[in-house]
């Protein structure tokens, strides 16, 4: 098969893949994100509460949990396509 033809076919195939992804896979992925997002809400609420000044009575005990919460939160907002989350000094 000639090189040009091959490249063209490959191009079509890639387009087909992308189209398939957008048209069919995206719905599924979005559905998963929505579910995961609902779960992460509690973590985020806890983090935000602290930054809003609500005192956490077990603040000392949960100190070593903070890095993971922040990292989770960061990963979450990155997944959502926001590279920075500047609100309320919560992250980034």
């Amino acid at each position, binding site marked *: 098969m000639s090189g040009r033809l091959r490249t063209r076919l490959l191009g079509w195939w890639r387009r087909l893949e992308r189209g398939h992804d*957008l048209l*069919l896979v995206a*719905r599924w992925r*979005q559905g998963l994100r929505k*579910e995961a997002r609902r779960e992460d809400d509690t973590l985020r609420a806890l983090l935000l509460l602290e930054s809003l000044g609500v005192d956490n009575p077990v603040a000392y005990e949960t100190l070593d949990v903070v890095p993971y919460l922040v990292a989770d939160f960061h990963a979450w907002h990155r997944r959502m396509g926001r590279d920075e989350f500047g609100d309320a000094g919560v992250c980034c």
Partner: protein
Amino acid sequence: MPAIVMVLIVGVLFYLGYRYYSGYLARRVYALDDSRPTPAHTMRDGVDFIPTNKHVLFGHHFTSVAGAAPIVGPAIAVFWGWGPALVWVVVGTIFAAGVHDFGAIVVSVRHKAQSIGTLTREVINTRARVLFLLIIFFLLTLVNAVFSVVISNLFVANPEAVLPILLEIPFAIAIGQYIYRTRSAALIPSLIGVVLLYASILLGQELPISLAGIAAEDGLFTERNIWVILLFVYTFIAARIPVWVLLQPRDYINSHQLFIALGVIGLGVLVGWDTIVAPMVNDQTPDNSPSWFPLLFVTIACGAISGFHSLVSSGTTSKQLDKESDARYVGYFGAIGEGALALGSILACTAGIVATTADWHAAYSDFGTASGDATSNFVNGVAHFAGNLGVPEATAVVFAAVVVISFAATTMDTGVRLQRYIVQEIAEIARIRPVARSLTLSGIIAVLIPLVLALLPGGGEDGYTFGVLWQLFGTTNQLTAGLALAVVAVWVTKSRRNPIAVLVPLVFLVVMTTWALIDNLLTFVAEGEWVLAPLDAIIFVLAVWLIVEAALALRQARSGSGTSEPVEVPES
């Protein structure tokens, strides 16, 4: 006439409708304005609110609304001949469904992409929201009941289809795992999965699963009834499982099946050059058959106009609309897509199933038979089209059955899930604490009522009851559409534009539905149907409530006052 001619004619009509009528709607009735940013942009959050390319959005919207309903309805309705069914599908799609699906997206987009339930409260009033909840409750009850019968009938008639359906789930989950594990493009694994699914059809033909051995000949535990019970047990359990485990993977596979089935039907019709053998108007109906007027309009809902679609339009689609003018393409064209599906069903049941007119009359001898065999007729018709493409007939039948069952099953799954929430919401309003707080209790209620309906004996003719239940489903579907149209009409009126394009389908719908309800109520009472009669009566009351509510709201909107604040300033 050859089937392909019908396709061409309808195609032209649909094109004209899209080109001119939807253009009129976009400019004059809905006043689409691309300079207004949509909620997908203003409330963008990467999860619910994501501006999406209109072709992709159309794909999502269409796969969400496409289901088994545009298939079964026409399959029954051709009993009266292909003429009435076709005319209603075409006219309904162009002047009713298009307006409805399109309008639902727009009114939602203009109100922060809230769903139609919330919109009834905002645009009309709080009472209307209660009405909405009740209508949806009955809609879901009936859709779950009829679809359980659809699936069960298909299982009984096609035991070869049971195995592929069972295998669908692990296939879907396996595809999901593969995709995310390798993070590569999903196309090949998905195609492989679909191929495997169809391979399992061949397996299913070797290993048919039938309950005939343990079922009784009649009474409660017939084969069909046992399947119905099993189905509801399954949905009860499945509703407790997170959507991403079961429902979403199944939905994913179904979306592939949709495109394949459409392709098969389209190509099959083209290649086979089948002729429509059914009469345009059926003059050989037995004397006591129900008349096409007004029952045609509630037998075909999806494919002519369906309220279900407004749930999708305002639930997900409006949140992803990139710009307002896209709504015309996604909404109106989506309705045309449904109409095309309905057309496919008509063709399958008038050109595909049998070769001669005499045979057709035998298959559609009376309304009971027509209703009971409707789904099978569609399946056989599609199998014939697939046969035109070289697929062996027996395998093609199983293929078509798997397609219909897959779609009906996902609708049931979603339906039971939604019903649980609706039951809880209604219980909350009615202050029935134990039900409102308990997922189990509300789940039981959500499943029990449709189960009872599905198991109703058919007065000697199982098919007849199914046909009647299907009509009741159609009426609630139309009422939902009516409520959505009312919301759209009120909004259009408040915005000082001419709502006539919305009012005409609204009035027509409501009149036909109410007429059908009264008709059926009289029949039920006369025949002593002590389950169906009260059900019909309740729905009738809801219909009247809808009329009153809509009329009041429209009058207030026209006079300029209103109980709710218009969210936007009236345009000139």
